[in-house]
């Protein structure tokens, strides 16, 4: 894979950081400018007068990220917003506005399913029943499906990806960079301290999410399709048990059998919906 080192060694990311793995994919873009709202990536990017990301980075306040990127896109070709799930909750209005204008930018949401940088607070995409510092007994609220919400903005390109499958993610970033207009990639980013698993397991946990069907890789570019490893897991009998994915993470400690059943039903519903989309939004 033609990856170049974008994030320089000796940066402040925790051991096993998913953002640090994901950022490598930006190296396939030609002269990108990266817009970063507050989050772990702000810290990882370093402190003045040094920075650890070897690309032009613009640090911006939460809600302004897509708006700043919109402005930059009038002068530059490859403008990328790299934001967290928390920034996406808080800055959703400008994200939505940018999408309906079809600004020529790529937005990557590196989703570690909580506001990690401020101490693991629940976000809209935090997994069902997961413990965070604001949901100490497990999340009771719903989990929103960000990529599907963006798909309904009728933008030219939407995809999900995972730091456990970098080749699939890199292919999607490359494809997005060739499309004019608003592109959105929702990247699944398991975080060792936030999800409570050992730093060596980031890639393994990301792959378990896909293998258990809990995270689904798909892409829309005019047609909608399940991609990569996830194609095989349309067939439920091929998946690993969901409990295997949940068991390796401390944030799911103490889940009851009923909790697991509830989560499984939710996941089944997502698969059903994606199946409909794959069979309906299909140019061929």
């Amino acid at each position, binding site marked *: 894979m033609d990856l170049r080192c974008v994030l320089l060694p*000796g940066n402040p990311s925790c051991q096993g950081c998913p953002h640090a793995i994901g950022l490598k994919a930006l190296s396939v873009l030609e002269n990108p400018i990266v817009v970063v709202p507050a989050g772990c990536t702000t810290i990882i990017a370093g402190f003045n007068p040094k920075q650890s990301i070897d690309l032009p980075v613009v640090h911006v306040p939460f809600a302004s990220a897509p708006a700043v990127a919109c402005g930059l896109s009038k002068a530059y070709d490859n403008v990328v917003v790299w934001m967290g799930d928390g920034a996406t909750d808080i800055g959703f209005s400008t994200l939505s506005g940018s999408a309906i204008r079809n600004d020529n930018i790529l937005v990557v949401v590196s989703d570690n399913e909580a506001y990690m940088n401020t101490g693991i607070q629940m976000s809209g995409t935090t997994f069902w029943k997961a413990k965070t510092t604001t949901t100490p007994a497990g999340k009771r609220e719903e989990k929103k499906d960000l990529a599907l919400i963006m798909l309904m903005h009728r933008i030219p390109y939407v995809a999900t990806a995972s730091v456990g499958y970098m080749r699939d993610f890199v292919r999607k970033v490359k494809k997005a960079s060739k499309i004019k207009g608003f592109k959105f990639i929702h990247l699944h980013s398991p975080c060792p301290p936030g999800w409570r698993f050992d730093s060596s397991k980031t890639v393994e946990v990301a792959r378990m999410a896909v293998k258990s069907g809990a995270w689904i890789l798909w892409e829309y570019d005019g047609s909608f399709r399940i991609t990569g490893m996830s194609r095989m897991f349309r067939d439920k009998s091929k998946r690993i048990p969901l409990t295997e994915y949940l068991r390796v993470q401390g944030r799911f400690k103490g889940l009851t059998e009923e909790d697991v059943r509830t989560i499984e039903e939710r996941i089944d519903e997502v698969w059903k919906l994606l199946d409909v989309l794959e069979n309906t939004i299909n140019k061929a």
Partner: protein
Amino acid sequence: MEWLKTLISRPSKGVSGKTGYWRTFKPIYDRDKCVLCYECYVYCPENCVEIVEKVVKIDYDFCKGCGICSEVCPANAIEMVKED
């Protein structure tokens, strides 16, 4: 406009110093087992794995000892050994 320059940061290695000090376990590479699949290179979060002339080189100045390279290696060519 000279003051503006102070607002701009420049790319540099070791923004957090020599992060090799963070390590509890050290990845040890065994060239004989390596099948050159590049998995360690692709997934090392720290970007401190390089493959030079078909040999994996780990930059111990910055390797944080996360253990991902060892986990993703399909040939068990990287072993995590406790630092002394």
